[in-house]
């Protein structure tokens, strides 16, 4: 299942920040991780990921460094302190949003049994 662009526009940065919270990663690694952790739901094209990373870097939420010690030069991204604060704030907002959607029945509550047990 693919997420619609508008939804992805809000969720993508938070997802990337969350992945970087686990340590620095390079572009392809992030793409793979997004695809793997979300069963492909949050998989984004490279044409979207790299601009997203550059945007986060421009906002000083992530920092990058070029590592030329490996077989090929790679640019690694890591979370900044500002990025951590942003992630924390976004996480709270997503939780609040999620709770609100749940209270509206999204996703639908499992049907109650006659005994009241789920």
């Amino acid at each position, binding site marked *: 299942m693919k997420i619609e662009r508008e939804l992805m526009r809000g969720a993508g940065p938070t997802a990337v920040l969350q992945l970087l919270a686990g340590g620095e990663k390079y572009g392809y690694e992030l793409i*793979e991780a997004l695809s793997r952790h979300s069963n492909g739901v949050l998989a984004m094209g490279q044409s979207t990921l*790299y*601009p997203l990373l*550059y*945007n986060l870097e*421009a906002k000083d939420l992530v920092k990058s460094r070029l590592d030329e010690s490996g077989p*090929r*030069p*790679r640019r690694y991204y890591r979370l900044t302190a500002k990025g951590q604060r942003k992630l924390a704030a976004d996480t709270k907002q997503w939780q609040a949003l999620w709770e609100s959607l749940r209270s509206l029945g999204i996703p639908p509550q499992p049907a109650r049994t006659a005994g009241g047990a789920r």
Partner: protein
Amino acid sequence: MIYARRVPCRLGYTRIRDALRGRTSLDWRQAVATADLPAEISDLIRNTVRRTRLWRSEKIDVARELAAHFQDGLGTGRTPQQLIHSFGDPRLAAQLIRRAKRCGRPLAWHVGRGVGRMMTVLVIAYVAVGLYVLSARPSIKTDYLAIFNARAFAVPEAERAWPLYRNAMNAMAGSGDCPGPPNPVAHNVHWEDAGWSEAEQFVMQHAAAIALLREAGRRAALGLPVWPEDESFAPEDRSFLGRPSAANADSQRRTFPDLKDRLLCETQLPQTELLRRASQLLAIDARRAALAGNARIALADVLAQSGMSRQVQEAPCISCALVAGEILASAYSVVQNVLTDQRELWSDDELRDLAREFVQFDIDWGRAIEGQRNMFYDVVQRIYTDDDDGGGRFVPGGMRTLSRLVPRYQTWKQRDYWWPTGKAGFFALPAADLYIASRAKMTAMYERHLGRVNRTLATPIWEWNLSPHQPSVPSFDDQPWQAYRHYLVSVFAPATERVPHMAEYRRGQRDGVLIGIALERYRREHGNWPASLSELAPHWLPALPVDRITGKPLHLRVLDDRVLVYSEGVDRDDDGGRLPPGHAGNHETPAADFAAPIFWTGDPTTEFANDGDWVIWSTTKGREPSNGHRVESEE
């Protein structure tokens, strides 16, 4: 075509530019080539990076990162086609990358970009205003020069006084640059002056010319149309245009290739200087005749002077009114001289004729102000469009017209102002349009000023509410930028500012000479002076003039066999007819100004002391009032 459109962008990010910046090894294509990727992937990266149109340093970062990305993808076993497919649209990628990378650029770049955009908008707006101004055309609806000359044209040729003046002056051509007597002779010389013999000799030698002047002065009108350009004057009149004869060469001649381009305010007034000099000659001749006991000629000379003051006002302007006042003052001084030293010269009837002449005639200051207004509106209609509702826009030729007024403004304010002309003027047009007050605002300010002047003119001095610190005309002394903004007002308002003062001054002089004539007639009948001026009315004077400064009765003082009539002056207290020390005034100070004219030397640096009276008539042994008169020596 596409390539051509991108050339500027390509030029902006070339290797040469990098080299100039001191950056080397920024060949992003090389970074793609050395990544050893399949051709289709290399093409995709090149295509994407090229489309970003980023700085070369940014491009090489993006190229390296994308190359590493695809290398990683190939390393996981994916095929180039799969990777290309999952990469997405390279055009969209380039667009998003460009946008994101530019966001991350330094603050200075963002500031510069903002400033650049703002400047671009301003330049576009400026050009748009310029085009707007270029589309404006003046609407010259009124021929103010025709209005100015209307009276002159209305005079039948046979009744014109001007040809007589011209012939008289040509007959007296002396050593000066202009036709007429040499300057030393042309002054208002009194018989006790050092130059009297020379002056007397001159008028006697030119008796025929003086007779012509006398005849001309009694004609009803001058009949001289005047023009800004030399060519419109008759050839025989061009020598009176006030320039040295040597300068009448073609290069010095005032011409206008397009007669529509001439300004009313640039009209040449040869009659003012000529009539002033002619009046002075007649004053000399009147004194000569008085000394010789020739009452008829002396009277005719004075009456001719009065006629000249009327004729010179044929053209409605302040200059002409001021000269009319000077001519009248010269005539009054002759009367005063005669009634001081030759008081039996004129008969009662002749004195009555003189008084009647002076009563009948007053300087038409209102018409002079109207003429000045016409000069203002003549310029207005040339520098603004006319929307028929009082408004209008600045026109392209406006700057050139304003620059022609600079010498006039410098004359008033002794300041250097400059309006760009030529190419500079062309590029400054939008700024001028935006800065210079609109037609509506300019005319409204000028009308407010003229309204104040006319109200003051119609109000006696004792009701004036003028403070030295509240000039009636906007001076812009401390705001030269406002002088530019309201330039026309700056140029045209000062000429009218002093009119009420001069009008009251001349009226006071006339009051003085009328009272003087009445006093002399009273003395002849009673053998002594009246105890009070009130005894003169209504038999000797229809109505007794009041003190023009205080509104109270004028003072009469008898000193032996002589009389002195005076106003209390601006200090508004009775100093017994004593003139202020120095006899000079500061004409920059409106409230003090009125006392000053009678003592005004014309030198604004002369210190003014207002402790004294304004003597409007005196037969005490001395000089005419305009030169001041001390009575201390008589006491």
